[in-house]
């Protein structure tokens, strides 16, 4: 198990290194950072001074080394817009996104997985069909459209919930629902197909043959084995969820990292974009690592 975790950890670190390097390459490809920072009307002297100050005249490998060093120390430079450290802007917003994300994941798990199990246990019944049709639509629906339909119905037509902002718990409902639809649908579909597959296994027949109650067969023999692909998918979806947060936060004016991303990109605020890409990549790598470990705990065969 230790070797397994160390191997995964090494892979995660390599992935992060690739991302950090890509960010460096892409930002250098995009043109002269001095011009990007100071704007088109900067004087040649100012540009020269800037280059000297940030060592942009040094050879690329030296610059790369310094850049990696800064990233490792958590120094991502200052925002071009507000002149405040990029990390400060990021930390101010991350709480809102975490609140939204965690609520959405909890909602997706709490509704999606039972829905999938229910559908599998009543295969081909009306419940199954309805649940799967809903999941299908939920998976293909663009999240911004789901959000807008929610606003149209719940806020504008029936006046039940506030359409934007953050503060009260009512304001959390629609964004969390919107962000969770995709994951919820995938979890329901995966839980169903994975449970169906497990139910037809020999060991389940054996469990039934030795006289266990159906409830015990499902709870003790099926669910744990069916959980493996579901956990994998849930972990892999973290990245998609973070991407989805950019959209959901835009639709509902939720003051989180997603909004920050969109704003930073509109104004080409490179230090902030760079920080967000690296932070998001780190989150995803950690989530995948957690999934791999959960995977190893669920299925001892994977541990080798």
């Amino acid at each position: 198990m230790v070797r397994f975790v160390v191997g995964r950890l090494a892979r995660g670190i390599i992935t992060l290194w690739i991302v950090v390097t890509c960010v460096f390459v892409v930002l250098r490809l995009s043109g002269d950072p001095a011009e990007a920072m100071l704007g088109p009307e900067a004087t040649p002297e100012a540009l020269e001074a800037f280059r000297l100050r940030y060592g942009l005249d040094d050879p690329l490998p030296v610059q790369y080394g310094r850049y990696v060093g800064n990233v490792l120390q958590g120094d991502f430079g200052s925002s071009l817009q507000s002149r405040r450290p990029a990390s400060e802007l990021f930390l101010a917003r991350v709480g809102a996104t975490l609140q939204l994300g965690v609520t959405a994941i909890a909602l997706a798990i709490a509704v999606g997985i039972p829905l999938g199990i229910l559908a599998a246990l009543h295969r081909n019944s009306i419940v199954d069909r309805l649940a799967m049709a809903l999941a299908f639509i939920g998976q293909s629906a663009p999240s911004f459209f789901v959000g807008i339909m929610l606003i149209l119905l719940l806020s504008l037509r029936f006046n039940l919930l506030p359409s934007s902002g953050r503060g009260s718990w009512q304001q959390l409902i629609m964004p969390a629902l919107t962000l969770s639809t995709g994951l919820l649908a995938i979890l329901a579909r995966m839980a169903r197909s994975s449970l169906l597959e497990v139910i037809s296994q020999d060991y389940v027949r054996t469990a039934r043959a030795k006289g266990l109650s159906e409830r015990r067969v499902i709870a003790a023999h099926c669910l744990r084995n069916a959980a493996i692909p579901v956990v994998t998918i849930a972990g892999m979806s973290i990245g998609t969820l973070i991407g989805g947060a950019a959209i959901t936060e835009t639709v509902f004016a939720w003051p989180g990292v997603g909004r920050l991303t969109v704003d930073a990109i509109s104004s080409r605020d490179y230090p902030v974009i760079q920080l967000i890409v690296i932070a998001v990549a780190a989150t995803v790598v950690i989530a995948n690592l957690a999934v791999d470990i959960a995977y190893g705990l669920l299925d001892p065969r994977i541990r080798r």
Partner: protein
Amino acid sequence: MVIGGRTATSPSTGALNAPASAAPTAETLSSFGREVPRHRRRWWVRTLSPLTLACLVILIAAIACGLAAGIVAPADPTANDLRARLQPPAFSEGGSAEHLLGTDQLGRDLLSRVIYGARVSLAIGIFGMLLGALVGTLSGLVAGFARGILDEIIMLLVDAVIALPFLIIALAVIAVFGSSLTILIFVAAFSGWASYTRVARGLVLGAREQQYVLASRALGAGPGRLLFRHIMPNILAPLIVLASFELTSIILLEASLSFLGFGVQPPTPSWGQMVSEGREYLNTAWWIGVFPGVALMLITVSVSLAGDWLRDVLDPALRAR
């Protein structure tokens, strides 16, 4: 990416898919020389449910609209007419037959804009998918066939790409390089290639040890011939199915980018951008945002259902489920 992710579930996907691709071969061999039973004929016709048929019709209609938007659309999608702004659709009160789906905040005909919007979505979707499939399949074939250090490097890249939230990466790329149709197609292709690589590699790993490959190798076939003449046709089905799922996610990616304002730029109409414009008028003119969104959903649901059908037809091993 969501749907791509579903197909390329875990490191074990390759192992799962390998027997799936081998199954039809064994089946064909055992039924060789015998008459094909009646009930197995024209599988694709028997599986064609009314729902699937409806989806295929919608898709064909959408492609036709995209290709012949100039002929199908009743009006110029970019022609402003401020006197006719915010007109409701024909079926609701105050609407006229002149603008079937109503008009937007600048008095542009919404139906025409929705029809022209199909062009952008499908062009980026289809070309992005093809480019991604080409790059991904080739790198997967190479990784699976060559093994060794090349395989390690390719798979390391694939893992890195699959791990990342693509929307954020796409946004960063657009922030740096700007947004044009070409860039968007490349971004779309880049979003999907890794899934093909992973699946193709797994399939090649399974196929290269099959009897028919070993036999042609023994007969002196070179790597190029082995790959493209013998292995490729046998592993194509799952890749085509994957491509159909990738198409949905690319269309959604493009719509999301357009919605955020980083996709195709106005005045060229695209669905995501139209929904975004409609947001400000939800209270007074709901149709501006709703119709393009409905069009988008019709397309994505149709592509997904058509993809499910394609999987049933092309991948007999998965049919049972």
